């Protein structure tokens, strides 16, 4: 067992990065705590309204020159940033494990996914091209050009502190906009490190800014007339009732990715061994704290008689439970660990509340993650082990609400139609997967299910950087999504020119 070296040796003071300068804040400082050992690793400011206003002003001033910078030159800044991220790959990954709690392999995966967005955005000279048509009328040509809008605000979540802001930031700056990133104050260190690298990569002052804080910063962004759009990833109530609503009122563009309750279907013809392995990563990866996590496993008895269905259900349930019970829980910098802690004690309490609710509503607790077993001697404060409930019905709270923790609900559906009805009864529409060897079932699932990200024999339906991160219903508010071409369209205005020369 190897414990990797911690890159943060002493308590850091996180600062804001505005106009190419590292600046302190007048706001109070709050602790950033490593959830695995409960040690304070940094202090981060809760910035004030004046500070966010000053950052917007700086970004606004940097915009005219940056938008005139040729796309290829902007792309080169991103290419240099990419190289620096590769160079600091391990450090960036270990910081994420320390600030969030995820395992080192999960952090490395997150770093990779973040870098991929920088790589894709570096193709901006091609991605941003418009189109044209000659002779739309006698001697008249028409063409479309894409132009940046100005300053955008990017509000990051706690669960993917490094990657999620990179679903947006590289595309925003590649298209010629300036940005202000507000990371989660629970785990702001990796974004601070990125800002440091942008400085080294040669981004001009004021293009890429970082303002730490909480609601005051978010409100400041939402109310500021010079912020042209907001990118947000977080909970459904905030996405729907605060971000989307306020952006509508103030005429801002908005991408608001929200909560989820994802269903995984297992059909009788699925490869059970591979399905179980995929389920472990889906339900327990990132300690269940992701909007693409599996939440409800629907064991579907399509084409089976009652006896066969019971046998199939038991087989799947047992395979799932045995695999979940073997997951090693501990500090993510221990390379043998497969699941880390929840981000903080409050989040653990919330998950415990759901487990108790499940018991109260008569779901059967097959594997009790409240009995914490860790691979080494650590405070149990933020830890839970994997939990499995069986005999869960669609009306139960644990089947309906987003738990955001390592809890699996195993449910039954007699056939595909019933399973699809159960999925559609959920207000969320982020992701759904089916495990099957039938092309017909897979095609029908993909065609009918109202979710933005569909998996066929995939546990975590995470779109690559060159595809949009989709989402429907209460899981997404906006029109265009983050990543790839949709992000390029989000961050640009389409201008049509019709031209005739006399």
């Amino acid at each position: 067992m190897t414990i990797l070296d911690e890159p943060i040796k002493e308590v850091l003071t996180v600062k804001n990065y505005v106009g190419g300068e590292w600046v302190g804040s007048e706001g109070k400082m709050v602790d950033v705590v490593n959830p695995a050992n409960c040690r304070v690793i940094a202090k981060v400011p809760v910035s004030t309204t004046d500070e966010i206003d000053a950052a917007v002003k700086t970004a606004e001033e940097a915009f005219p020159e940056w938008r005139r910078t040729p796309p290829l030159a902007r792309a080169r800044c991103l290419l240099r940033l990419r190289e620096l991220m590769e160079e600091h790959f391990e450090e960036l990954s270990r910081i994420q494990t320390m600030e969030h709690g995820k395992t080192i392999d999960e952090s490395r995966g997150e770093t990779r996914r973040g870098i991929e967005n920088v790589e894709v955005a570096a193709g901006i000279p091609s991605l941003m091209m418009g189109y044209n048509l000659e002779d739309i009328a006698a001697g008249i040509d028409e063409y479309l050009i894409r132009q940046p809008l100005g300053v955008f605000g990017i509000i990051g979540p706690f669960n993917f502190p490094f990657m999620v802001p990179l679903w947006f930031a590289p595309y925003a700056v590649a298209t010629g906009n300036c940005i202000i990133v507000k990371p989660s104050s629970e785990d702001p260190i990796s974004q601070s490190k990125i800002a440091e690298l942008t400085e080294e990569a040669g981004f001009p002052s004021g293009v890429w800014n970082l303002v730490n804080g909480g609601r005051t910063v978010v409100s400041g962004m939402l109310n500021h007339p010079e912020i042209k759009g907001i990118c947000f990833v977080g909970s459904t109530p905030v996405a729907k009732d605060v971000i989307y609503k306020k952006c509508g009122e103030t005429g801002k563009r908005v991408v608001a990715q929200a909560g989820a309750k994802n269903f995984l279907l297992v059909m009788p013809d699925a490869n059970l061994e591979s399905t179980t392995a995929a389920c472990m990563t889906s339900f327990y990866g990132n300690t269940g704290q992701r909007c693409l996590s599996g939440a409800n496993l629907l064991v579907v008895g399509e084409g089976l008689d009652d006896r066969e269905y019971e046998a199939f259900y038991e087989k799947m349930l047992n395979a799932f439970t045995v695999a979940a019970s073997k997951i090693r829980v501990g500090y993510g910098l221990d390379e043998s660990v497969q699941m880390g802690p929840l981000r903080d004690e409050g989040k653990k309490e919330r998950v415990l509340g759901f487990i108790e609710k499940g018991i109260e509503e008569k779901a059967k607790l097959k594997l009790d993650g409240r009995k914490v077993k860790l691979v080494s001697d650590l405070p149990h404060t933020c830890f839970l082990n994997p939990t499995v409930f069986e005999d869960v019905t669609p009306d139960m709270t644990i089947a309906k609400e987003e738990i955001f923790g390592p809890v699996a609900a195993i449910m039954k559906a007699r056939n595909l139609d019933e399973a699809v009805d159960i999925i559609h009864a959920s207000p969320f529409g982020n992701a759904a997967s089916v495990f099957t060897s039938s092309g017909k079932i897979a095609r029908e699932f993909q065609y009918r299910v109202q979710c933005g990200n569909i998996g066929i024999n995939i546990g975590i339906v995470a779109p690559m950087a060159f595809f949009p991160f989709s989402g429907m219903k209460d899981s997404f508010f906006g029109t265009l999504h983050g990543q790839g071409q949709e992000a390029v369209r989000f961050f640009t205005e389409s201008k049509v020119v019709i031209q005739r020369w006399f």
Partner: protein
Amino acid sequence: MEEPKATASIIINLAEKFENESSDFYEKLAKRFEENKAAFLSFAHESKKYGVLIVRTYRETITDALEACFSFEGLDLSKYEVETNLSEDASFSEALSMAIALEDKTSKFYTDVAELSKSLLATIPAAFRRVAKGRNSRKKVLESLLNKTPRP
């Protein structure tokens, strides 16, 4: 709770360790046995490249498909423990025997992890297979050197 598993992180770090130790080992052989300096230095250089290849492949392909819950099931890491500490008075043939054992165990390691990772992105087992092949070729070179070496 289960015994420690060979997670991807453990395997990659082990591979990197093998390559670093091999590189140091062959550099020492190059200093000790001047007549075969070129061959040993090329092995040392090659090991450095193998280390870079493995780590780069891992970092470039690690995504949700290859994260914490994936482990190299059934792999007994104690099978691959290698010895690279050459005693001061070791003869050339003893050094070669040690090198052959090193190549044998590491090529077996890479072959096994390639097999266990074949369900992942193709570049991962391909990188392991490439190093296994290189290690096997070295073993043949070392065996041929040993065969040419007069026995006491």
